[in-house]
């Protein structure tokens, strides 16, 4: 059986992605609602805590939260799911030889799909707050998705590989992403951070990303410098993921 590699790889990613998406909707009553409900519930709680109780001074705070939490949710889900991309497919890895990183690729693409599916909800909130989607979204959103995808995929590949060899990682990833959320300007804006701490934003890849998502979603504005910084972190993550994966791939079948 001869096959063109490109056609085969495309099909492999496709069937794995379809499987992930189908499984998400099978056996759950609410299906699509779940992928939207989670960030909305968080947005509601944060709104009550910071706007009603702590009284943060900000216009459209709920919209502000939603525009940050949806992309964040995509990132966090990718990280948490990454723990199981290799570990959860142990029979497959032990028995069949195929490019294993495609399991991670399909997993992260699955989260991209759900993020895209949640965009209408963001649009609904924009309209409710009297704002409108910008025509520039046509190129801004694909670019942002690409930037976040590169960073998520690189990190997910690292997590999926390392979790095979160090199973405590799963717990650490759960705790770490939660802490990371609070250290990233998702619940608060960049101007609330004192100027002398602004350098922190540059060492946090997600800070630039979330700030840019908000610019795009709320105002149709895409800032160049954060894009470049994020692209740099994306390349770094991809390099890290690929090197860890390549170094350890030959041991996968023994360890799962």
């Amino acid at each position, binding site marked *: 059986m001869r096959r063109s590699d490109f056609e085969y790889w495309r099909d492999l990613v496709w069937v794995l992605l379809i499987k992930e998406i189908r499984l998400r909707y*099978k056996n759950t009553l609410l299906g699509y609602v779940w992928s939207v409900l989670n960030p909305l519930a968080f947005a509601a709680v944060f709104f009550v805590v910071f706007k009603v109780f702590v009284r943060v001074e900000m216009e459209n705070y709920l919209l502000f939260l939603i525009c940050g939490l949806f992309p964040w949710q995509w990132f966090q889900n990718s990280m948490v799911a990454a723990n199981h991309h290799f570990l959860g497919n142990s029979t*497959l890895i032990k028995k069949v030889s195929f490019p294993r990183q495609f399991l991670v690729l399909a997993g992260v693409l699955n989260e991209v799909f759900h993020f895209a599916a949640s965009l209408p909800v963001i649009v609904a909130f924009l309209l409710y707050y009297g704002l409108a989607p910008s025509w520039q979204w046509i190129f801004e959103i694909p670019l942002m998705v690409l930037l976040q995808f590169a960073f998520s995929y690189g990190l997910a590949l690292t997590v999926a590989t390392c979790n095979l060899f160090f199973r405590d990682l799963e717990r650490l990833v759960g705790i770490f992403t939660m802490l990371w959320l609070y250290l990233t300007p998702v619940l608060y804006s960049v101007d609330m951070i004192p100027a002398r701490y602004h350098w922190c934003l540059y060492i946090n890849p997600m800070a630039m990303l979330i700030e840019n998502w908000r610019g795009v979603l709320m105002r149709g504005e895409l800032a160049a410098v954060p894009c470049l910084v994020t692209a740099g972190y994306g390349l770094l993550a991809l390099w890290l993921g690929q090197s860890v994966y390549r170094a350890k791939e030959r041991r996968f079948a023994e360890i799962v």
Partner: protein
Amino acid sequence: MSREAAIAFRHVAKYYPLQNLALAGFKHALLHLPSHLAALWRGERYCALNDVSFEVARGECFGIIGRNGSGKSTTLGLAAGVLKADGGEVEVRGHVSPLLELGAGFHPDLSGRENIILNGVLLGMTRRQVMARVEEIIAFSELGEFIKRPLRTYSSGMIARLGFSVVVHLDPEILLIDEVLAVGDIAFQQKCLAKMESFHSGGTTMVFVSHDLSAVSRICDRVALLQSGRLLAEGPPGQVIGEYTKRIAGG
């Protein structure tokens, strides 16, 4: 590698580490640090295969027998490209279809048909190739209406039937078969054996691992006997199987 060989093992060795610090988890690793470090220092490892050499000619059916833990599955894993040799060389010419543990890669929540497409692609076909054969695969599996239902409603025999049906429709060049006859009823076992014989006469190279010695002597041209990771004997089925039963009887 001789011109006609499809698979060649040359002085192949495979080790598995005995101690794995990271897998044990934090607490265990800390509590047992001295013994772990000592084991790492001594480089303790389990030798699954040691200096194993053999060749499987194109179109030949090669049987591997031996007791549990003798290295049979490791040999198949190396031939499938899932495991990598630590010493020596493994050379495989042609596309390998692993018929290992029927239903590996099936998902319980997907229907039989969805699983055929998923499994077919995972085993190396493009979607177009699977689609072209899907009706044929369903007919061969004799699952009827069940094909639309989720796999978790299947009996283990039905899963094995579906798995076998996918693999035999792959047009395999090299077929690796690990204990597939252990599952399924007599009728299904006979069907499997008949299919394997037809592959054999059709020129497919096969490596067959089994504890079913009568099946091995029925379809294999040559048989290898493994014990504790070493190749003890290799030759015509009657002779090697005789050697094996004599050893078992002798304890």
